[in-house]
């Protein structure tokens, strides 16, 4: 790991000032679960790390009047254990509860989880100068791509690794950011981006900005998160579905279906939503929604299985919500 300077920030404002003090390679570090690995593997470079993990004003869960606001340095474990979140935004609680292992959930933060970098094995190996590291090609396209994207890949076929991002997008979350020009809010839907839009990083955040909180406005949706992994003990999502439905009995008033582990960003399954909108949910409708969800999928050489798998997960998530 190359040398870097480590600075403790006492407030979000101070962290942003430090990010904007003129030096180029400064980065926020929270739980360090992802960033330190990247530095050790020589994937990322940083001259200055600004530590926000002790910033108390960023560590909170506020659940009031039906809306939810979670500070950026709140741990994944705290989110998973919160009863209010489980009651009203179950998909987020469920997503948090299946992030990595207990140690990772105890140390990892929400902000870090959303800004973590892809886990693509080519990206994560220094030996491959891939597109995501400023190189010329995406090795996954003609290489080994069992865990790669079936949606929105071009020109780089990594998948977004965050469980929380998928759930938050389905729940219509808003990301609160702080930069040199002050605060701004960005809907989760617009926060995460495809490589065809922005190659680096995986969201619209500028290097001199940070996330301060995530908010979920009041809603009437029932939600769930289903994550498929090869290994239950800990594993990244091979495919995942966050489904949030506003229901009138078993009739679907409004549907929000977002897929994880299959695209470079949380992938809204618009066609599946359209299938459900205004209809009474039955097993066959859920099946139809599953089919619609993968309608536009294109497989690479090793990941064809993700298509039937994702279809199943969509169906199961919907059925779980009316059970």
């Amino acid at each position, binding site marked *: *790991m*190359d040398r870097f300077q480590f600075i403790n920030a006492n407030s979000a404002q101070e962290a942003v000032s430090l990010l904007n003090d003129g030096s180029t390679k400064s980065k926020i570090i929270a739980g360090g679960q992802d960033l330190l690995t990247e530095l050790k593997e020589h994937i990322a470079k940083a001259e200055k790390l600004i530590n926000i993990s002790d910033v108390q004003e960023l560590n909170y869960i506020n659940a009031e009047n039906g809306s939810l606001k979670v500070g950026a340095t709140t741990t994944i474990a705290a989110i998973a254990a919160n009863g209010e979140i489980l009651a009203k935004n179950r998909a987020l609680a469920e997503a948090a509860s299946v992030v990595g292992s207990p140690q990772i959930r105890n140390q990892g933060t929400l902000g870090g989880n959303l800004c973590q970098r892809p*886990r693509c*094995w*080519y990206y994560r*190996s220094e*030996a*491959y100068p891939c597109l995501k590291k400023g190189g010329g090609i995406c*090795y996954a396209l*003609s*290489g*080994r791509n*069992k*865990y790669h994207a079936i949606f929105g890949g071009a020109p780089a076929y990594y998948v977004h690794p965050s469980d929380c991002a998928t759930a938050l997008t389905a729940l219509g979350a808003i990301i609160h950011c702080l930069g040199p020009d002050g605060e701004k809010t960005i809907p989760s839907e617009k926060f995460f981006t495809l490589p065809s839009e922005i190659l680096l990083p995986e969201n619209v955040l500028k290097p001199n900005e940070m996330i301060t909180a995530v908010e979920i406005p009041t809603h009437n949706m029932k939600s769930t998160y289903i994550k*498929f992994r*090869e*290994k*239950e*003990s*800990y*594993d*990244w999502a*091979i495919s995942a579905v966050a489904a949030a439905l506003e229901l009138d009995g078993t009739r679907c008033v409004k549907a929000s279906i977002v897929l994880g582990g299959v695209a470079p960003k949380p992938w809204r399954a618009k066609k599946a939503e359209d299938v459900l909108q205004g209809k009474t949910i039955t097993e066959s409708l859920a099946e139809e929604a599953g089919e619609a969800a993968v309608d536009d999928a294109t497989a690479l050489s*090793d*990941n*064809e*299985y993700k298509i*039937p*798998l994702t279809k*199943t*997960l969509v169906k199961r998530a919907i059925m779980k919500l009316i059970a």
Partner: protein
Amino acid sequence: MAKQHTTVVGYEGNTQSIEYAIPENETGLWGANFDYSIVGKKNIPRLDAVEKVTGKAKYSYDINRPNMLHAVVLTCPYAHAHFEVTDTSEAEKMPGVKSIEVFDEGGKGTARFAGWLIAMAAAETIQQARDAARKIKVNYKVLPFVIDPDEAMDDASPRVNRGGNVNPPEARARDRGDVDQGFQEAEVIVEGVYTTQVQTHSCLETHGCVAEWNGDEVTVWHSTQGIWSVAGGIASGLKDLGLQQNNVRVITQYMGGGFGSKFGPEPFGVLCALVAKKVGRPVKMMLDRYTDTVYAGNKPGSKMYVKLGAKKDGKLTAIHVKAYNYPGHSGGSSVAIPFMEHYDCENIRIEEQNVMTNAGASRAFRAPGRPQGSFGIEMALEELAMKLEMDSYELKAKNVSGTTYKAVPYELKLGAEKFGWKEKSKKHGSENGKIKHGVGCAVTFWHSTGQDKGASVRCTLYPDGSVEVANGCQDLGTGQRTMMAIVAAEELGIDVGFIKVSIGDTQLGLNGPASGGSTTTPTTSPVVRNACYQAKLKLYEKIATKWKTEASDIDCKNGTVFSKSHSDKKMSWKDAAAMLRNSAITATADGFTKPDVPGSNTGAYGAQFAEVEVDTETGKVRCTRIVAVQDCGKTIAKKQAESQICGAVIQGVACALYEDRIMDNMAGRQINPNMEEYKIPGIKETPDIETVIVDVYDPVVNTGGKGLGEPPAIPTGGAIGCAVANAIGVPIRDLPITPDKVLAALQRKEG
């Protein structure tokens, strides 16, 4: 002078009395009619369990010497390249750096896989060493390479080594009977191609060592399965420095797994000792996870073309196998034994070749070649059962036979009962619903034989009643100390608490076996007995004088020494030992004499039963339960035996469902050399494991003990593969059975 003995041998429902001869100074067999006080009676926990879980036990990884340097190795990133270390000056100038050394003469050579050792940097801290290693300038001339074994077989493919990629060029064949005749007799024939993946050892403690000099003597703490070969290797590696083996001490008190991958000094072991000498400071080098994974060995993959012939009743008439083993750039493997020995068949032909690729070299891995061959034969039999619409247990039971020492038919039957096979078994693929359940079974065999000249054991009796038993072996993690203590306590008739076991140090000066091939218990346990026997006779002679009787009239049970002829003459073990006053009794036994009973020593057998649950919509397979029936001759340390079986089963589950070394076909590197993408099962992937240990009294050595590390590691993958076929009605012939393969197979079945 040989002495005649009698004993009872065999296993439940199949015993017999035998006679055999053994030299006077050795002790006779325990056998089935021996009055045991500890073995099989007391469930002795692992003696060093508390040390291990509290961190008191120091592994090589934990050894930190005053003033010690840390070293890091640099490996080649290309699958095939000429390399030359051109400039080390920048690296040498890095902060804290004390040494930069190269592995190959002149720093040049040809790397045949990505992971080839090139150079080693030693510095004050490991961080400094890592930084320095990156500054070593190496010139690479990248060469064409081949990763895919099927491609490697093509004559036009790049050559991995000087010879051809297929070794030997003509398949070596093993024949029994007349295979053509066997197929002519067959009423039904099944054929299939079965493949198994490369599995990496992934030892929790990576390979490495600490070397420290004191004058002309060097001490090496090495994470190894064989301290003696390390000592010999360090001495010969540094003979130019005038080093002789009498000045090399190797210590391995505790180790975090080896599974067959940790024999010999390793090039970095020799280099550590060299740098320690040159710099005059201790040097520590433990491989990082990446290098350990790509460099330090793996279980070779295989492709087996299997053809079986059978009668309509399921009796095998012929087995023909053409197998290709994939040992990487060097080494070789064989999958033959499970095809030849697990089931009865008179006509067998096995043809085998190794196919070399530009990948890390294979090493021994817990029953080399056996889990692969077992998967092949069990799956082929499963497909035979499907074709004959027969219950696969019935079919398999029909094709095994036993002897007094070979309990496999009994074990298969016992396992089926414990497992509840009758209630659980159903026609292949007959279950409705999206989640399907299946059962499968498989047998195992391993020749866990002892080396009669392989160990010297010293037993010392002290006046306070305490005892030391010492041998130059090491504990691979199997519980060697506990096993030796139990044997000594049983032989001496005292509590295990009296006994201290000293192992893992060449300075003991006692020959000891390498921990491999499931041979350590049968090699050391009889010698432990002999040493204790000789020591106690010396003590008994002193007591005999006092009691005016013969030493042979004296015995000790449960801590009481007594005269067999005069029951009033007795004293406690402590009082007996106190007669030694200020001296101690030492007896050293060298090896043991095999009783040499005809038909004996047939190895360790067993059978495993697996239950799986397959989600046909996601392709996920979960193994929910394994019943493992196993013998290891006479079981000496039951808890440790159970733990060996559980560990073996978990590695078998890993091989069946999870672990896979995935190679990037473009650059020829392992693309998942880490603990995230190389999927080692965790607690949630671990099935309920029920161990059923069978005692088979085989007059192979005086304790009747056989090794157990390997036998239970053989059949798990096959049993699980069969269970999956039973559940979904289609065989998945390619390990590991991952969701992508299950979904693809189901799609093929439907479409």
